[in-house]
Structures are given as structure tokens and as C-alpha cells.
């Protein structure tokens, strides 16, 4: 890449290593960028809609993913081209913000780019195109608001929410499609139970989505509580505990040690004795609080006088204390050795060890308990309560999981997915995530538009009408681009794209009813209201705005400077 030449035709060295850089500029740069963007959109186009196909992606280390979620496909594709990367980010933003419609937004952006290419060929200034698109997108967003409908839901009437989630799920993998109704219900119930309806805030972190191989998709369930992929620390411990009172501990089962590096010089027997007495005193003090001990529980006595069982004796004191507070289950962040395990079993105090911090927190939230850092601080008020804690084993495998259910305060819930193979579970997880996001969006803003491409067609008509009033080709091009979403839907469903689209369009204009869309599932009616196909208003608006924004950015680039090996 040389910027200038002297009179003998030799290039000036102006940039560092300039002969290793390439430069594309002007209309060529725009064309190259547009075709890169279009290529990405073309890949996703076939994944749109309820009859969209899945993509199989293999990662460098051999993991296989099968999905039709736009954001996931693009993420896994690992694209290198910069403009293509912008499309990936576009999809990701939609995912972050709305969680659904990640394919649609890319298809929309691709269509806009395609239209822009035609306009560029006619010699229209790219910024003019971008401005026209922007104006059109504003008209579009307003129109969407106009055709949107509000619906009310209450925790008792979740039907509308379920319907919307079903629309989201229907575009997912066929296997998920099979039982979209129960999955949609699960999603809605999960969101409603963690939602703060007053602040219209939903923290999705409180919904744990767990998957386990085996069983069938229909076995997927919502648990008002938490599941932990752990089992009781001792096989002989009870597998089921009613009305459990749970002590949630972050300390190991041993006397506390100083964190500072320390060394105790013990050179005489006396010193050892003193040390022992010290530790003993520590536990004695602790046990002071423990009424049970003084009210004549003699069992501990056996350990009391056995110096060899020094550690065990302390342990049993701890256990007695824990039990005295009223705990019937111990959940511990750290581990404990076999001896402790044996004693726990012996004292009939079931325990779970090595529970991760995040799960610990969720358990605390779900059961209303408090996390306790030291045994001394354990009080009855700090115990969590759960109606039922049970260990469940699956099929013939030795896999076991712990269910903590019927919690006092089910502000944290778990969706437990079963499925025939790992890929299916992963895809279901993604679908559920989308459904959760949709439900969350509806809680934030309860406006909906009708799906099946009906909103796009209606907008296309509105934008086209507006194009007559405003000068410029770009607005009309935007209207054409809007048509490409229903077109792709029709194509993917095996319908005649042009025929179907024009039929629906004329029907919409004739009856002045924005509810007609593409009948992808061949139900027999075009009316999306009858078919109960909803999408969220904010999701749709976001799609349009994001796509326009990124297209504008791509159009605005007229100079690409890159190292030539790229």
C-alpha cells in the first residue's frame, strides 16, 4: 500500500511497513464489506422460523453443537472478517438485551445491506442511504408501537405469557418443539417466582438451569428450590428428609486455625498437654451453649476420656452443637475426612460436602437460611428450611442428585432438564434461556406484536406509505428489506415465498388488519391472533434498531487498512 509516489514512481515510505499493508477504499471497500455481511446473513437465513433448520458446528477440540439459535451459531463459527464480526456482535447484543430474535436481527441486517448494495450501484451516497434507513427505522418503530397490544397477566393468569414463550420455543429444535407447552409453562412459572413485580426487575441469576443426561424431555421439571449435583456424604445416610433444617457452613469440620503461617514448638509433654487443653477448652466453651450436652447426653462421654480419639471427640462436640441448634442437614462448602463422615452418619446427621459457592448462595436464598462461617455463630434463626430434601438416583447409573424442594422462600428456582443426548440438553437449555428472556421482557413491558412475519409485513406497508411522502430511495429499500423476513419464513416452511408474501400483504391491506402472517405450521389460518403467535414489542423494536445501527456503521466505512496477511 503506497500513499504517494515521487516523480520517478518510487513510493514514499510514509507508514511503518507500508508494503505489508493493504488498503481498500471507496466503493470497493463498501462492496467488500457488504458482501461479507451478506454472507453471514445467508448462513442464518435458513434457521429462521418454526421450520428453520439446525446447524451442526464442530469446535477445534471436537465438541459438536447442534443449534438454530443465531447468537450461538455465530459465536461458534469463529469468523475472522471484521465486518462479519460486527454481525456476530449484532447478534450477541440482541441476545444480551432481549435474549430472543438473534437470527431475525441478522437476517434483517443482511437484507438491508443487500438493498444498500443496489442503491450504491445507482450512485447514491452511502450516508444518504444510512440516513434514509434511520428515518425508516423510526417510522417502523412507531408503527410497531401503534399495532402493538397490551395484555394483562397476573400470577394467577399466566396464559398470555405461556403463549408468547411458546412462539419463541416453536422456532427452536424440533425435539423441543414437541413439548413446547410444558416447557413454556415451566419458563413462565420460573420467571414469575423470582420476579420482583413491583420493580419490574428479574434477576435471571436466580434461576438455575440444570441438565442431566437420560430420561426424556417430558421429564423436565421445575423445582421450587435447588438441585445440587452432589450426594450425601455417606451412603447410609437417610435419602429423604422431611422439613429439613439446613445448616449452611463455609468452615471445614475442624477446629479453627490461624490464617497466618504459624508454628507451635512442642518439646515437652507438658506443652502438648497444654495445647490439648486449649483446644478442649475451646470446645468446652462452645458446648456451654449446648444445652443438650449438659442435660445428660452421655454418649459423648465415650470419647471424652480417650486421648487417642482426640480429634474425634472434638468433632462429636461440634456435631452435638450443630444438632442442638436444630439442624437436620449440614451443607458444607469444604470437605471432611472419613472419620468425620463416619461420625456424622453415626449421629444421624446427614451432610453434603464440597458444595460450590454459587450453589451455596442459591440454597441460602431458596431456603431463607444464612451462610455461617463459624460453628459458634450457628443459631436456630440462621438455619434454612426446606419442605423436602431428597436424594434421587437416575436410571441404572450411579448418578445421584440432591433435591432441595418446597422451600420456605422460593426466590431461587431450578429448571431441571432431561434429555436423550447431550446436544439435545444443551439446545434445550438455550431454548429455555430464550423463553426465560421473553418472559422477563414481558414483565418489564407487557406489549406484544403478532409474529409469523405479520409485524414485518405491516411495517413494510407503513414504511412504503411513508416513502411516498419523503424523498429518496432508501426508505423504499427499507420496506423491501422488511419483506425479506416473512419471505425467509415462507421459504423455510416450504411455501412459495413470493406468492405467499404477496397474498398475505394484499390481505393485510384489504382488511386493514395487521394480524395476518405466514402460516408456517400449515394450520389453515393466516390470522396470527387465532394462531396465538406473539412476540414482544421491545424485542421487535430492538431488532429493527440494532440492525439499522450496524448497517449504518458498515455503510459509513469507506477505507479499510489492514495487514496484508489478513
Amino acid at each position, binding site marked *: 500500500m503506497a*500513499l*504517494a509516489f*515521487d516523480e520517478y514512481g518510487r513510493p*514514499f*515510505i*510514509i*507508514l511503518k511497513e507500508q508494503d505489508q499493508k493493504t488498503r481498500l477504499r471507496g466503493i470497493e*471497500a463498501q462492496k467488500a464489506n457488504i458482501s461479507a455481511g451478506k454472507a453471514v446473513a445467508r448462513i442464518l437465513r435458513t434457521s429462521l422460523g418454526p421450520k428453520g433448520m439446525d446447524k451442526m458446528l464442530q469446535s477445534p477440540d471436537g465438541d459438536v453443537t447442534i443449534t438454530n439459535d443465531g447468537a450461538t451459531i455465530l459465536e461458534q463459527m469463529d469468523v475472522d472478517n*471484521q465486518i462479519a464480526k*460486527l454481525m456476530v*456482535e449484532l447478534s*450477541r*447484543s*440482541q*441476545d*444480551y*438485551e432481549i435474549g430472543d430474535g438473534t437470527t431475525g436481527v441478522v437476517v434483517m441486517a443482511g437484507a438491508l445491506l443487500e438493498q444498500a448494495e443496489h442503491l450504491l450501484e445507482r450512485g447514491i*451516497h*452511502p*450516508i*444518504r442511504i444510512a*440516513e434514509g434507513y434511520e428515518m425508516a427505522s423510526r417510522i417502523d418503530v412507531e408503527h410497531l408501537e401503534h399495532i402493538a397490544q397490551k395484555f394483562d397477566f397476573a400470577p394467577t393468569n399466566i396464559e398470555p405469557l405461556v403463549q408468547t414463550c411458546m412462539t419463541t420455543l416453536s422456532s427452536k429444535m424440533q425435539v423441543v418443539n414437541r413439548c413446547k407447552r410444558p416447557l413454556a409453562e415451566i419458563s413462565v412459572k420460573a420467571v414469575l417466582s423470582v420476579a420482583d413485580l413491583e*420493580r419490574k426487575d428479574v*434477576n435471571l*441469576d436466580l434461576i438455575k438451569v440444570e441438565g442431566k443426561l437420560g430420561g426424556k424431555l417430558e421429564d423436565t421439571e421445575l423445582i421450587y428450590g435447588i438441585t445440587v449435583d452432589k450426594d450425601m456424604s455417606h451412603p447410609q445416610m437417610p435419602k429423604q428428609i422431611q422439613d429439613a433444617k439446613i445448616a449452611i457452613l*463455609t468452615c471445614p469440620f475442624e477446629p*479453627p486455625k*490461624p*490464617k*497466618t*503461617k*504459624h*508454628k507451635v*514448638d*512442642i518439646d515437652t509433654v507438658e*506443652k502438648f498437654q*497444654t*495445647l490439648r487443653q486449649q*483446644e478442649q477448652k*475451646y470446645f468446652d466453651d462452645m458446648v456451654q451453649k449446648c444445652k443438650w450436652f449438659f442435660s445428660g447426653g452421655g454418649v459423648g462421654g465415650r470419647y471424652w476420656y480417650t486421648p487417642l480419639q482426640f480429634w474425634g471427640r472434638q468433632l462429636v462436640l461440634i456435631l452435638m452443637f450443630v444438632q442442638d441448634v436444630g439442624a437436620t442437614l449440614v451443607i458444607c*462448602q469444604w470437605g471432611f475426612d472419613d472419620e468425620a463422615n463416619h461420625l456424622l452418619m453415626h449421629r444421624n446427621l446427614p451432610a453434603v460436602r464440597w458444595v460450590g*459457592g*454459587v450453589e*451455596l*448462595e442459591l440454597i441460602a436464598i431458596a431456603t431463607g437460611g*444464612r*451462610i455461617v*462461617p463459624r460453628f459458634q455463630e450457628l443459631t436456630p434463626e*440462621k438455619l434454612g428450611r426446606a419442605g423436602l430434601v431428597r436424594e434421587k438416583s437416575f436410571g441404572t447409573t450411579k448418578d445421584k442428585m440432591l433435591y432441595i424442594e418446597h422451600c420456605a422462600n422460593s426466590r431461587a428456582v431450578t429448571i431441571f432438564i432431561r434429555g436423550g443426548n447431550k446436544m439435545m440438553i444443551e439446545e434445550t437449555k438455550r431454548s429455555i434461556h430464550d423463553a426465560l428472556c421473553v418472559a422477563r421482557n414481558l414483565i418489564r413491558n407487557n406489549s406484544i406484536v403478532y409474529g409469523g412475519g405479520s409485524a414485518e409485513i405491516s411495517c413494510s406497508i407503513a414504511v412504503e406509505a411513508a416513502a411516498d411522502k419523503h424523498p429518496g430511495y432508501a426508505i423504499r429499500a427499507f420496506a423491501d428489506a422488511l419483506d425479506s423476513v416473512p419471505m425467509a419464513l415462507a421459504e423455510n416452511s416450504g411455501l412459495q415465498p413470493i406468492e405467499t408474501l404477496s397474498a398475505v400483504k394484499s390481505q393485510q391491506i384489504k382488511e386493514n388488519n395487521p394480524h395476518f402472517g405466514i402460516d408456517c405450521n400449515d394450520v389453515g389460518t393466516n390470522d396470527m391472533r387465532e394462531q396465538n403467535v406473539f412476540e414482544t414489542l421491545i424485542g421487535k423494536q430492538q431488532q429493527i*434498531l440494532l440492525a439499522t*445501527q450496524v448497517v*449504518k*456503521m458498515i455503510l*459509513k*466505512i*469507506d*477505507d*479499510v*487498512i*489492514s495487514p496484508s496477511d489478513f
Partner: protein
Amino acid sequence: MASMLQPQIILLKEGTDTSQGKAQLVSNINACTAVADVVRTTLGPRGMDKLIHDDKGSVTISNDGATIMKLLDIVHPAAKILVDIAKSQDSEVGDGTTTVVLLAGEFLKEAKPFVEDGVHPQNLIRSYRTACNLAIEKIKEIAVSIEGKSLEEKKSLLAKCAATTLSSKLIGGEKEFFASMVVDAVIAIGNEDRLNMIGIKKVPGGNMRDSFLVNGVAFKKTFSYAGFEQQPKKFLNPKILLLNIELELKSEKENAEIRLSDPSQYQSIVDAEWNIIYDKLDKCVKSGAKIVLSRLAIGDLATQYFADRDIFCAGRVAEEDLNRVAAAAGGTIQTSVNNIIDEVMGTCEIFEEKQVGNERFNIFSGCPSGRTATIVLRGGADQFIEEAERSLHDAIMIVRRALKNSTVVPGGGAIDMEISRYLRQHARTIAGKSQLFINSYAKALEVIPRQLCDNAGFDATDVLNKLRQKHALPSGEGAPYGVDINTGGIADSFANFVWEPSVVKINAINAATEAACLILSVDETVKNPKSESAQGEAAASAMGGRGRGGGFPGRGRGMRRR
């Protein structure tokens, strides 16, 4: 014959590249023009963006002159001066970085024919300097002051300035929205000179209109330990305690070792450690604070302790965020929890943890002293937000400058045309060569409206002639006319609120003239071969670094290894 036998005098080391005289000057000018050509297309509301890869693979999409110049990695010694003036314009006024490069390039281009014809560069320089001074005086004369207006009026005027800056950027479509946001932010920090009191947080996702201004502080949820979710997430008028200490159960001193000869003290050491942390936590709670923020870690023990007492805490808060909270809420950062009095604690009207895009944000709004503002930027792609941030930075700088030197001039090339006309008029009164030079300076200034037209795809000659005619009107009423970017004609920039702070123009003209003069005054470049080989060496050692490190001190070996 004798002279032929005389040995050649070797003055410089072998391989030194010297080029001198007129040819060198012309070649320098050519190089600078080439660089100016790169940024040329980014000027104005119809300016385009550049996408630049660097060797590390990171990508920038930008419209900002200074950013582009920096990323181009220019090595040509004369052209480097242009990079420097772009940078200086950026740090001095923040906007007009493309303008300054373009002007310098154009001044040089106009000087080139004179140099080729054998004019002594010093003559040119002298005339350029005169012209520059005249131009600046003219700007000061035309400039309209916005001093003495009411706050509301001033706000809308400042927003106009910000909108002009933003119109050439990617976020130009929403310029009014962002302009008023920027003005609010700048007014919020008042006369405070610390620009870091305006925080810009970037959250991918959402569209531009989802960006919002927090009249206070916002920062991303910090890393939290188990127990965090059990803390309350909303407070009204809380007391805020700001700390710079760790609240964790850990050894008090690094690498300390305790040796106990008396085992009876063992337990007391254990207790001591717990007591230290509990004592700290207890003091925090006793202070009555509802929110505890620390620059250092707040461990799980402390998190749970606070959760039990309905206190919100966040550890590892970035220093600048903490400073902003301190300034906004009116507290001071404590390095100890002893003797916390009410005066050192801040407060705000509402604290809330909110979902923004995919992140949770801690938002403190309605702060009493209000000397901070945070802009949360949203956008569809990372590069988009990056560029938006740069654009907002420009706008913030402009508003700040306009607030201090509160005079504005009409933009859209109007001021440039007016100066150009004035200089031409003035040139006629000068006898001698200087007349020509000042005329060429005046012509060079016309590059701004010309480029605006070119970028928008208008017929530049046509528009320029219309503008010249308007500006030449004897009544002077045509002075504020500039390029109308929407219709391709001309319009009154002042009436259309295309305003720039005069300081931007003054600085741009000054810097561009100085750079042009500097380049004109150079007639010889001596390029030392050593620096060249040092570069090669650096590259060689980077490539074959292992070979040398592995006990082959020979440079040649390292080279061959490439």
C-alpha cells in the same frame, strides 16, 4: 586535473542518507499531502469512517482525525508533524482534529508551486504567519459571545455546539439526544476541572437511545462472594461508607510467621484473627452505613456478615469509580474503620442495583454535591460503542471549552469562507510577493467547505462560487453562510445552529500554520543509518530472540535464524 585527484571528503558515516535542497522540500510536501488525503474523507456530517486493523489484530472503526492518525503508524519524518498537530489539537480542544490536518496539508500544497518556482521558503513562512494572525483576529471579531445568558439559554446554546461536533460522527443520527446528555453531564460537574468526574461506561447491547445519563455514579457489579444476593439491592437516602481496606479473614501481614513456644497461646491467636475482622465489620455496621464500598476485596465472611445486617457491600471497586462516588456522595475514602464519623460518609437519594443489558449495575443517583455524572453508553457492537465514546469525548471537550471561552462562530465552512474573503481583500493592499502568498493562504482555507461538498457528493465548485458571492456582499450579511449539507446549496449556518466554539477554529488555524511553516523551513533531512539498523536489530532480536538468549551472542546468528 588536480581537483580530480583530491580525495573525497567523507563527513558522514557510510550509508547516511542525506537529501537536501528544493527537491527535499517538495518531497516532504508531497508526503504530507498524501497523509492529509487519508483523513480528507472523514470531514463533516457526510464524512466516512475508516476501518483500521493493527498487527495485533485489534480493529478500530473511527471518524476521529487524531485516532486515525495515531493508528496509521506514520514513519515519514515530515508527515509525523501532522500526527503531532492532530494530537495537540485533540488534547487542547478535543475536536477539529481532521480540520487541522487538512488545513496543514492544504497550506503546503498551495506553497508547493511557489517553492518549485524558486521562492525562498522564509518569504512564504513570513507571509503565512502574517496571514495566520490576521485570520485569528478576524475570528475573534466575528465570534459571538454567549456570556451573560441564563442557564437555560446557555444550555441550549451549548447543546448546539455539541450537536455540530456530533453530526459528523456515527451517532450523528441521535445528535440532539446525545448533545443534551453531554451538556447535562458537563454542567453537572460544574467548574470542576477534573474531566474524570464524567464517567463513561460501555455496555454492549441495546440501541443508542437506550444510553442514559446518571446524575451520580454508576458502575458494574463487582465480583461478589456467596451471600451477596441476600443483601438488599435498593436504598433510599443510605449512608455510604467508602473504604480502602480489605475486609477478609486472612493473615494480617504478608509472609509473617508466628512461633509459639507456649501452646496455651494457640487459641488466642485464632481468636485474635477472628476478632480483628469482626471488630472491623462491627465498626462498619455501627457507623450506620447502609452501603459499604471498598477498593480492595470484601471477602465472603464480610459479605455474609453484611447480608445478615441488611447492608449492601461491594469490594474491588475500581479506584476511579470509588473516587467518583466520593465526590458525588460527599464522603471521603477511609483507610481505617476506626472513628468513623458521619461527616466522612456520603449519601445519595437512591441507590439501586439494576439490570443494564447483560450486566447488573450499581447506580447511585441524586447525589447531594452532584459534581459527577456518568454516561452509560449502549450500542450494537463493541466497535460501535468505542467510536461513540470517542465522539462523546470530543463533544464533552467542546462543551467544556465553549463554557469557558464562551464565544462561537458559524460552522459548515462559513467561518473559513469569511476569513478567506477577508484575507484576499487584505492582500490587495499589500505590495510585493507577499500578496500572492497571502492569497494562496486564503485559497487554502477554502478547502474546508470544498471538502464538505466533496464528501457529500455535491458539486464543490458550484457551491463554492455561491458562497464566495454571498460572502462578497458589501453589506456583510452573507458572512454566516456556509454549506447546507442537506440540500446541496448554501444556508445561513448561524441561523441553522451549526456552531463551533471559536477556540476550536483559532487553535486549528494556529497549529496548522505552525506545522506548515515548520515543514517549509526544513531543507535537509539527514537520516542516520544507525537508527535504521537499530530497527532491523530490534526486529531481529524479536524474531530470533530465543537464539540469542540461548547463548549465541552473535548478532549474525540471530539474523540468520529469521
